[in-house]
């Protein structure tokens, strides 16, 4: 049987994070450290100048069932086309551990970089540079149940030209190999 692998979004403190299973639901990036499928209470304000950000969102795979095999070779990708609308970007990087997202709730998150997120692998890149043919490599391998691999940390960036309201939805995909029995 294939391993059962789920996608969690982590929020809350690093000491006691909340892991929300988003395998079957969407997850919105707002100006708050919380998962929601459609929350609007703390949306990101369109800046008068410069750039505002979502609070970063940390995603990580987890194995909930596996027998006699390994899950490895993890990749992450988008469809390669930014459909979020004018003035909206999405940036991503992997990280080896979880850091709670910070910022000004209801206005902007702090920018996702190695200063604010020390275990980030490096500078972020546009999420849309990662496609099925050129995916983001995510370190990690496991033959047991539990959290799997590095984090994929995502943040949206809103510029002055963005339109009000919820952006169109984007899809992101994890790929992995599985030799379980």
């Amino acid at each position, binding site marked *: 049987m294939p391993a059962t692998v789920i996608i969690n979004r982590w929020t809350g403190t690093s000491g006691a994070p909340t892991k929300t299973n988003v*395998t079957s639901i969407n997850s919105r990036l707002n100006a708050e450290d919380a998962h929601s499928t459609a929350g609007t209470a703390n949306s990101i304000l369109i800046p008068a100048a410069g750039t505002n950000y979502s609070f970063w969102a940390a995603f990580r795979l987890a194995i909930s069932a596996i027998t006699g*095999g390994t899950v490895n070779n993890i990749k992450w990708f988008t469809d390669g086309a930014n459909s979020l609308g004018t003035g909206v970007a999405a940036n991503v990087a992997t990280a080896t551990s979880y850091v709670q997202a910070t910022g000004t709730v209801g206005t902007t998150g702090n920018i996702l970089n190695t200063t604010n997120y020390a275990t980030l692998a490096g500078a972020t890149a546009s999420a849309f540079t990662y496609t099925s043919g050129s995916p983001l490599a995510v370190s990690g391998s496991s033959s047991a149940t539990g959290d799997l691999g590095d984090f994929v940390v995502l943040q949206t960036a809103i510029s002055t030209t963005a339109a009000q309201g919820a952006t169109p939805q984007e899809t992101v995909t994890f790929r992995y190999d599985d030799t379980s029995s």
Partner: protein
Amino acid sequence: MQNLKWLAQYNDNTTLKQIDDDGTKNAYSDIDRSKLLAFMLFDESAVLDGLTKPRFAVYFDDNDGERLVWTRRAFQTVGQNHSVIFHIVGKKTTEQKQGFIMAIAPDGQTLVRDNFVDDGLFDEVIQ
């Protein structure tokens, strides 16, 4: 096709099944490649106690079982409650021998390449 199960046929007329008749599960890493004659994938509904109905079979006539490649390659999108699983199976290419890699889609469509290619589906398998 997502639930294909493997069977290793050895050159001493024995076999190792992914799942024995009594339900015991064997690991892919338990396959003894030194005596591997064939690696077969069976549909879940097919009878597994014979070698009559493999959906796919890779033979190692040159006693080169170490060249075997197999994994499930799963694609799981946030917000979708299922993963799409391809079986990647074939023989590694060596300096002496040309190999091949098959990607078996959930609907049974089968794609074949000479070797691994970084195209998102035929990427190298780590084993």
